[in-house]
């Protein structure tokens, strides 16, 4: 399958560098650009890049799921919310120091955890690893070893739903 193209020669190296570059570009646009629609599109680019990285890691399935869920569903839902918000051509509000500080703090925290995890993992060369990332294996893992994580992630959806309900209830009262 795709594994044989991706695992040999000069071409995959170049492709990998391009993918990583695009992911970083997307992430930078997502954080620093002052036009909110560009932010979302940057995020979509970064997430699509991550999907490509999953393909490099040998799981086409996860890559496609990433594309379907994050680019296809979440980014589009975000854009939809933006379309209903403040017009982009109005003067932009100044960035608040407190907001920047919270953002930087949250980012650093996640970065720290990630670095910690990278150091603690006992890395193995690709040849010694088992590369069985079939849909069945992933399904088994999600419902046995990682069932708690799986359930906690689903809490995010609950929070999003509650948020939507609260916004729609209170907004109606304020505007009318």
């Amino acid at each position, binding site marked *: *399958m795709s594994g044989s193209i991706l695992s040999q020669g000069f071409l995959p190296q170049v492709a990998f560098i391009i993918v990583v570059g695009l992911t970083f570009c997307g992430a930078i646009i997502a954080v620093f650009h002052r036009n909110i629609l560009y932010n979302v*599109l940057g995020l979509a680019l970064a997430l699509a890049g991550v999907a490509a990285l999953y393909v490099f890691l040998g799981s086409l399935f996860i890559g*496609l*799921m990433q*594309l*379907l869920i994050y*680019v*296809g569903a979440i980014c589009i839902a975000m*854009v939809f919310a933006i379309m209903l918000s403040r017009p982009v051509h109005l003067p932009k509000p100044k960035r608040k120091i407190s907001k920047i500080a919270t953002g930087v703090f949250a980012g650093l925290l996640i970065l720290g955890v990630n670095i910690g995890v990278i150091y603690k993992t006992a890395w193995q060369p690709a040849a010694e690893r088992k590369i069985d990332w*079939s849909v069945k294996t992933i399904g088994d893992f999600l419902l046995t070893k990682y069932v708690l994580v799986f359930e906690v992630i689903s809490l995010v959806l609950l929070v999003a739903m509650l948020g939507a309900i609260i916004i729609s209830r209170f907004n109606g009262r304020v505007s009318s």
Partner: protein
Amino acid sequence: MEHILSNELGRLIVGLIVVLIFSQLNALFLVWLERKVAGHIQLRIGPKEVGPYGLLQTIVDGLKLVGKELITPKRADRILFIIAPVLVFVPVLVPFIVLPFSKSLPLNDMNVGLLVIFSFSTINVLAILIGGWGSNNKYALLGAIRSVAQNIAYEIPLLLSVLSVVLMTKTLQMSKIVQAQGSYWFFLIQPIAALTYFICATAETNRAPFDIPEAESELVAGFHTEFSGMRFGLFFLAEYTNVFVVCAVATTLFLGGWQGPFGFSLGIPGIIWFLAKTYLLVFVIMWFRWTFPRLRFDQLISFSWKVLIPLALANLIITAGVIKLI
């Protein structure tokens, strides 16, 4: 030739060229077909001047489109305006990698084939949105917003109806789904899923009666109002290629792909069966367009959320139950 095709990269490159040519020819043919179908439904005869039966009419139209000036509106967002037509066209080519035209002809018969098609089809929406927003025109923006709302609403029942087939075959691989329909086609035992899929596919491709993102009478031309020349041409090509793709997927999932009815191939090669069934479905979609009036926006959205999604969910649950019990 033999040795190019045995090499995977070579096969992909040859396949890509074939797909590019095919998608152009297909779009040209479908535009011609649409005008003919429209004509005959309205008691006209459609294009007839250029070539036999007017067959060369769309080629001439295409050449005219290529020759036209590319106009970028002054206040438009330059980058997004240029990216949008490209981004709308590229993802619709991806499904051709996995579409099983015949037993040996899928370019790359991946075990996640069905997922490839649906994960790339969502990028289309993002592109429409970029185009509509980037052209800085209120009609284009309204069209884009409608398109997103519609796509969010119809993507869910679409995937649910596809899932009931996946549950039955226990695979996402296109060729295996086709092989599972050796003795009977799935639309016989999954009529609700087939119907839901077809309705949603019509909506996903923004075809009438679900064409409110580009409703002429309200929104000029919707999200591609400001696009001229071949940029508009790319939107057009993407739409017709997309129609072909959703019909080809419907053929694969519900109409037995390259196989004849009840396992009788009647000596006709698989690719002919596949294309015949796909173009039959394309014809039905065109028939819809010239028969049904356009829906209102709220009717469209509530039809999806209140009728199609519960229906598709119920169908999925029943399918799962029946599979476990039998």
